[in-house]
C-alpha cells in the first residue's frame, strides 16, 4: 500500500512540473512585453530595471523558470499590480472563503446526488427513475452562473429573504459562523451544488443499476424493496467510486468557482481571478491559477489513494 502511494506520488511529480510550466508560460503568452504584464503602466524606469532583474526577463527562459520556481517555493508569488500587496497574502484569505463555499456545495451536491441517483438506479426505468434522471440532467446542463442569477432574482430581489452578494454585512472579510454571515453562504452554496449533484446522481444511478443487475434477480427484489441487506450491499459497493467522484467534484468547484463567485461577489479565489482578469493583473492571475491547479492535482492524488484504499480492485492507471 505504501508502495502504491509512493508510486502515485512519483507519477504526479511530472504532471505537477508540467502544470507549473504552463502557469509560468501564461505571463509569456500574453501579448506584449512580459514586463508590462507584471508592472503597472506608469512604473518608473528604475522599477522596471529592478523588476527585470528580479524576474530575470533578460535571461534565457529556463533560467527565468528556475528563478520563478525558487521564488514560489519560498512563498513569494509576486506582487499584485492593482493593489500592490503580495499575491500570497491575498490568496490565503480568499482560499479560505472559497474552500468554505466549495466544501459546503460539494456536500449538499453529494447528498442530493446520492439520493436522486439511488432512487433512479433502484427503480430503474420507472417514472421515479425518469424524474430523478431528469433532475440530474438539469444539474449538468444548467449554466450555474445563470442559475445563481435566477435564485438571486427569486430570493433576494422578489422575496428579499437572502442577501444577493458578499460574504457578510458590509462585504467584510472576517467570517463568523453566525446566521448573519451564514445567510450569505446559502445561495452561492446551493447554486454551486447543482453541478456535483447532477454528476454524482448520474454516476450513482449507473453504479446502483449495475450492482443490482449483477447480483439480484427481480424475484429477490420483489421480496424486500428496502431490505437492509440489499441496501447495505449496494452502498458498500458503490461507495468508493461515489466518494471518488465527490472528491473530484470538490476539485472542480475549487478551480471553477470564478463564475459563481462573480455572480455573488463572494470574496474567494474565483472572485480574485475575475479581478485579475478585469485589471489585467498578471501576477495575481498567475499566482492564483498556480495555487488552484496544484490544489487540484493534490486532490486528485488524494482521491486516487483513498479510492484504492477503500477498493483495492480499482487501480487507476
Amino acid at each position, binding site marked *: 500500500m505504501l508502495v502504491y502511494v509512493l508510486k502515485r506520488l512519483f507519477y504526479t511529480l*511530472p*504532471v*505537477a512540473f*508540467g*502544470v507549473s*510550466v*504552463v*502557469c509560468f508560460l*501564461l*505571463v509569456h*503568452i*500574453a*501579448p506584449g512585453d512580459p514586463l508590462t504584464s507584471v508592472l503597472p503602466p506608469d512604473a518608473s524606469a528604475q522599477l522596471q530595471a529592478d523588476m527585470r532583474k528580479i524576474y530575470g526577463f533578460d535571461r534565457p527562459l529556463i533560467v527565468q523558470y528556475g528563478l520563478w520556481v525558487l521564488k514560489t517555493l519560498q512563498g513569494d508569488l509576486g506582487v499584485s499590480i492593482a493593489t500592490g500587496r503580495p499575491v500570497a497574502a491575498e490568496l490565503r484569505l480568499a482560499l479560505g472563503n472559497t474552500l468554505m463555499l466549495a466544501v459546503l456545495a460539494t456536500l449538499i451536491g453529494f447528498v442530493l446526488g446520492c439520493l436522486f441517483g439511488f432512487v433512479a438506479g433502484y427503480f430503474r426505468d420507472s417514472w421515479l427513475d425518469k424524474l430523478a*434522471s431528469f433532475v440530474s*440532467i*438539469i444539474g*449538468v*446542463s*444548467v*449554466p*450555474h*452562473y*445563470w*442559475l445563481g*442569477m*435566477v435564485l*438571486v*432574482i427569486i430570493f433576494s*430581489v*422578489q422575496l428579499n429573504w437572502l442577501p444577493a452578494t458578499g460574504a457578510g454585512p458590509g462585504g467584510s472579510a472576517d467570517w463568523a459562523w453566525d446566521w448573519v454571515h451564514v445567510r450569505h453562504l446559502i445561495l452561492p452554496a446551493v447554486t454551486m451544488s447543482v453541478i456535483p449533484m447532477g454528476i454524482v446522481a*448520474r454516476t450513482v*444511478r*449507473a453504479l446502483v*443499476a*449495475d450492482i443490482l443487475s449483477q447480483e439480484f434477480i427481480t424475484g429477490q427484489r420483489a421480496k424486500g424493496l428496502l431490505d437492509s441487506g440489499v441496501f447495505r450491499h449496494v452502498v458498500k459497493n458503490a461507495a468508493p467510486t461515489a466518494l471518488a467522484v465527490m472528491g473530484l467534484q470538490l*476539485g*472542480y468547484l*475549487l*478551480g*471553477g468557482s*470564478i*463564475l459563481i463567485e*462573480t*455572480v455573488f461577489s463572494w470574496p474567494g479565489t474565483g472572485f480574485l*481571478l*475575475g479581478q*485579475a*482578469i*478585469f485589471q489585467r493583473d*498578471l501576477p495575481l*492571475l498567475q499566482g492564483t*491559477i498556480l495555487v*488552484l*491547479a496544484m490544489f*487540484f*492535482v493534490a486532490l*486528485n492524488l488524494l482521491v486516487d489513494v483513498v479510492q484504492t484504499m477503500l477498493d483495492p480492485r480499482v487501480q487507476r492507471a
Partner: protein
Amino acid sequence: MSSASFETIATEGTSPGYWSGVLRRLGRDPVAMFALLVILAMVLMAVFAPLIGPADPYRGQMLRRLRPIGTPGFPLGTDELGRDMLTRLIYGARLSLLMGVTPVFIAFFIGSAIGITAGYLGGKVNTVLMRTVDVFFAFPSVLLAIALSGALGAGIFNGLLSLTIVFIPPIARIAESVTTAVRKIEYVEAARASGASALTIVRVHVLGNVIGPIFVYATGLISVSLILASGLSFLGLGVKPPEPEWGLMLNTLRNAIYVQPWVAALPGAMIFITSISFNLLSDGLRSAMDLKS
C-alpha cells in the same frame, strides 16, 4: 444512459449495419428527437437571423431601455441600452453556438489525431504524447479556459483558441484508450502480419472502428462547451460588446435584475435550453449505441 463503454463498442461491433441501426433506434426515442428539434430550431434561428429578427440588434434608444416582457413592439422587452431583446436573442444564437460548437469540432480532429497516434504506436511515443496531454488535463476545465483566455486577452479568436485547447485532452484520452483496445484485436494483428505500413493499417482497420465512439463522446462535450463559452463572455473574456451573445448579454444585464429581472434572465434561459437539448441528444445517442439493450 447506457453502461456500454466506448472501448466495448469500438472492439465489439461496428459492422456497417451498426450505425444505421443506431440512428434508427435514436429515431424512436421521443426525448432525443425532441431535443434534436430544439437544436435544429436554434441553428435555423442563427442562420436566418437577419430574416427573422424584427429589429436591428445593435441599435437601441436609451429612452426605452429595460422595458418588460410584453411591451408592444418589443415582445421580450429591451436591454440596458434599449435594444430589442427578441432580436438580440435570435442573433445571439450565432455567436453562442459558434463559440460552443467550434472548439469541440476542432478539438475532435486534433484530439483524435493525437490519441490514435499514441494508441497505435504505443511505447515511448504514447508516453510522451499522453503525459503532455495529462498536464493540461490536470487543470479543471474552467480554470484552464480562464487561465488561457485571461492571459491571451478577450476576443472571439482567443476564446476559441482557449476552449479548443481545453477540449483536446479529454478527446485525446478517449481516442488513445479506444485505439489501444482495438489494436490488440486479432484482425489488426493479422494486418500487421501482412506487412502493411502503420498508416495503412490505421486507415483501413483502425479508423473506421474508433472514429464513431470518439465522435459520440465529443458530441457529449458540446453542452459543456456552450456553458463554458458563454461563461467566458459572461466574465468579460471571449465575445466583446456590442456583439450579441447570450453569455455577454447576461453580463451586461446583471445589474438589471433589480429593475427587470425576467428580461435579464432570458439569455441564460436560451443557454440552458440549448445545453440541455445537446445533453439529451447525446444521452439518447449513447443509449442507442448500447449493444445490450
